[in-house]
């Protein structure tokens, strides 16, 4: 059981009538890994995640989440849900309950819950512990969602666009929390719009468009990023020059000799994840 991957998907398809939302996906997420699914709106991200979470049924293909078919019903499914945590996209439920009341109530559902007070500290809601959910800001509300996702000490955590609406500081502290969970051995499946988030957190990313996986790779190697030519630009005779090169160091040495030291307004740019990603999904349009 423990040797199996956290998520194993082969040939997964989902059709809504004549429309194919997910088109034959193969995917393996190892235990302890943070895996990010990237893709434009309507690419099929949420459909895939909701099939893995047991909310939707696959039209065809084989799905195993912690060794279990999420489409199963009954007591076995309840036991399985003890081991997973789900942070859905935006919610507005339990508006009249306080942060503490909601989290401590949800703790009752699980066989092996985390400590409520500790979870409140981890998600940074200590100062809002007695505030009603309706009084929370968007970012605080999202942290409450995360608290409810992790209160059952899940082996596998689903995070669907967790930091939408966060300010940069809240996003950084959220990333810290995710790293803590990973250090504790939690497997995390993340969908996000933010490329910097995938870059900062994910061990591997999968880019999805039109229901198909375009590529699965580490953030450093996606789309051949590690081999992509760097752009070197500098100012010469009042004009900005630029060249693309596989060996920027050699180019800079040559330029340095030509300028006899300082190269005016020198910049070396490697394509960032965002550029690579946009190029990947742009190719299909």
């Amino acid at each position, binding site marked *: 059981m423990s040797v199996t991957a956290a998520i194993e998907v082969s040939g997964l398809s989902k059709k809504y009538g004549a429309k194919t939302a997910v088109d034959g996906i193969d995917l393996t997420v190892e235990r302890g890994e943070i895996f990010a699914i990237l893709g434009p709106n309507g690419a099929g991200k949420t459909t895939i995640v909701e099939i893995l*979470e*047991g*909310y939707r049924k696959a039209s065809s293909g084989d799905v195993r989440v912690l060794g279990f078919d999420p489409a199963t019903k009954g*007591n076995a499914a*309840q*036991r399985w*849900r*003890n081991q*997973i945590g*789900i942070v*859905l996209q*935006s*919610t*507005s*439920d*339990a*508006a*009249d*309950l306080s942060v503490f*009341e909601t989290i401590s*109530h*949800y703790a*009752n*559902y*699980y*066989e092996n819950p985390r400590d409520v007070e500790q979870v409140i500290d981890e998600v940074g809601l200590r100062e809002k512990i007695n505030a009603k959910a309706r009084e929370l800001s968007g970012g605080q509300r999202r942290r409450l969602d995360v608290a*409810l996702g992790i209160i*059952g000490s899940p082996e596998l955590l689903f995070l669907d666009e967790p930091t939408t609406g966060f300010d940069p500081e809240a996003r950084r502290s959220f990333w810290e929390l995710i790293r803590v969970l990973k250090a504790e051995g939690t497997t995390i499946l993340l969908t996000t719009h933010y490329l910097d988030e995938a870059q900062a957190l994910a061990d591997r990313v999968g880019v999805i468009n039109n229901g198909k996986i375009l590529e699965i790779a580490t953030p450093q190697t996606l789309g051949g990023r590690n081999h992509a030519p760097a752009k070197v630009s500098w100012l010469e005779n009042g004009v900005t020059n630029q060249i693309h090169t596989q060996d920027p160091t050699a180019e800079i040495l040559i330029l340095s000799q030509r300028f006899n030291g300082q190269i005016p307004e020198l910049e070396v740019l490697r394509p960032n994840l965002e550029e690579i990603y946009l190029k990947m999904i742009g190719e299909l349009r």
Partner: protein
Amino acid sequence: MNSLVATIRIGLLRSGIELKQFLRQRESVVFTLFFPVILLFIFGTVFKDTIAPGVTFSQYFVAGMIASGLVNTGFQQLAITIPMERDDGTLKRLRGTPMSVSSYFIGKALLVTFLMIIQTALLLFFGSVVFDLNLPTQANLWWNFTWLVLLGSACSTILGIAFSIVPKSGRGASAVVSPIVIILQFFSGVFFVFTSLPSWMQQFAALFPLKWLTQGMRSVFLPDEFATQEVAGSWEIGKTALVLIIWLLLGLIFAIKKFKWSRE
């Protein structure tokens, strides 16, 4: 067995959290708990007639009001609030936890029963103080009253959960559910004396639980002699229990099979 204990324990915890949320919405507290009292006050003040020797209209009306309170608090409230819970993500979140659907149903049923007890107590209190309502003195009538409230609450809860799949959205739910309840109230002898209604209306109403609940409540609050003025010439207590149990079982099967956790 262990999972049954867990289901009931979580059901009790859910009823606590449901009640807490209910009490924090002041409008619904006032509407649910005091609306029947307000209606009793209006109808009792306007209609001062007696409908039979020793039976005032307000005495007749209290029986109907307790019965329709069961329908309002259970069926109507749940058929409106559950679609709202579906819209705001409550149900989807619960679906993603190990909580069982039975615990959710138990929580709702206990909430409805608790609200019914308070609502009925208020109605009886104001009825006796303001309109000289005669409360039953025989133990067997109180026994009938108790099982009618409990069975009525259970039936109304389950039918509310079952009907919650009909409204497409939380915002539109009230427009779908409220007219049904109001029409049933008119047809079932809540606002008018049942036997004064056209017979097609009586027959239509007899298909639904509210008519039987009002009749059952009349058997508790009206003098025994009044039974001769009912459609069947008797209170039909056994038949009332049977109709309620049939609706309860049909509702239960439907609710378990068809309950919708999310919109789509």
